[in-house]
């Protein structure tokens, strides 16, 4: 009924803004499980609540209702011009949405936070190389 895609946009916007579910839920005055259900599309979000969230996440209400276009969402977040349709299709094939989310999240962090992620990724990589050969 459309609420699944609203939920996905909500999750994307929340992650881009660097909030955990607990943090955003506390800000809007609902439980973490309610917010989780909004994001899964299992519970309909009512207009007043979405307007509150939109304000906190600094997004227009329309953002949550638009057909999902992860590639352009990330491009907007990283201040790139929107991709032309053919270019967008190619880009979507190149970058999986998990990677896009990670990139956007990474860029929303402070320099210290970004350094922590880099350190952790390097440590993980070393460990994987050790384990797998």
């Amino acid at each position: 009924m459309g609420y699944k895609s609203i939920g996905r946009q909500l999750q994307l916007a929340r992650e881009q803004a660097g909030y955990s579910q607990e943090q955003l839920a506390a800000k809007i005055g609902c439980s973490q499980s309610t917010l989780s259900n909004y994001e899964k599309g299992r519970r309909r979000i009512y207009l007043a609540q979405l307007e509150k969230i939109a304000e906190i996440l600094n997004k227009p209400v329309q953002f949550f209702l638009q057909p999902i276009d992860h590639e352009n969402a990330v491009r907007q977040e990283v201040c790139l011009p929107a991709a032309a349709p053919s270019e967008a299709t190619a880009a979507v094939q190149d970058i999986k949405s998990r990677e896009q989310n990670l990139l956007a999240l990474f860029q929303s962090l402070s320099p210290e936070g970004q350094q922590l992620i880099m350190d952790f990724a390097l440590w993980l990589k070393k460990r994987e190389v050790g384990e797998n050969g």
Partner: protein
Amino acid sequence: MADFNLSPEQEQLLEEFRDIALHKIAPMAAELDEAGDGRFDFGPVRVLAEHNFLTPTIPCEYGGRGLDYFTTSLLLEELAAACAGVATVVTANIHAASPIVLAGTGQQKKTYLPLLASRKAHLAALALTEPEAGSDIASISTLAVKNNGFWNISGTKEFVINGGVASFTTLFATTGPDKKRSGMIAFVLPAGIPGLKEGAVRHKLGIRYVRTTQLVLDRVHVPDEMVIGSQGSAYLLLMQTFDRGRALAGAVGVGLARAAYEFALEFSKKRHQFGRPVFDQQAVAFNLADLLVKIEAARLLVWKACWLIDNDLDYTMLSSMAKLAGSSVAQEAAAAAMDICGGRGYLKGCPVEKYLRDARVMSLIEGTNNIQKAVIASQL
């Protein structure tokens, strides 16, 4: 803790609802049905307007009764027991007002809500459905294009209750069909605005009192002040309007079911076959017992959904359940009542015949029963 006691005010209102339904609406029901879809009789809605029950949810600050959804469900059950058509007109007014109540500007509220609370009977319409867009509401194609600060709206709406007799229409359009949900936009359009015309009047199997028409919009030219809600919010506004309205649609079903049940019960006690009332046949009495269980269960769903709405809790699933249960029991009770009344129930002029025709629409309007199941399933 659940409490099924009505407050003294609700008890008093219920008395008033019953009095109006029984003494003023019920006596007209057969005549309204017989007159058909072709003409609209303002008599019944005038009666309701005199008591300010025509749109009972209008907040007190705009001259309304300010009834909550629970109390409104009591009114609708009584009205539907008297005439499902009249009850449906009241729900249409409530739906049309709902987006304005929820998200209208101060000016929109001041202009349109007092109309529906006026002692003169004013009706309102909600125009969403189109010839090519029914259940799939995001595919509407009535187009609103902005030019030099004004909107031009063109398209055709279908099945609009109170079409052609409404003082204003709450219209849903799109700023571009490819934008789907995010492109939806809502307007409030006063009657008589240039370019808004009544199309074909729809002739129906049941609820024949309810005037239902096409609406044709031919370059209707309106300023921004007529847009309801913030940009991009119309889809959510519509969904919320439906979610609230469906609980009330359930109440209409319960009222109709109750009327059919009560008629059949009385008939079965008076009608003698094989030397005793047909009610004494266990098959008949069990049928009535089953109906009573289902009516009570549907009513409880309606009450719970309304309670959730009134307490600003999550009501989506319960509202769909209430609508599903109310419409289903209305159809079942009307069909069972016809069986219990035998051949007499099938005759024109017997209330049961009207109940059956009226009940049939209840699984179609305000989202078909499949759509209610889809809403419920989406939350599992």
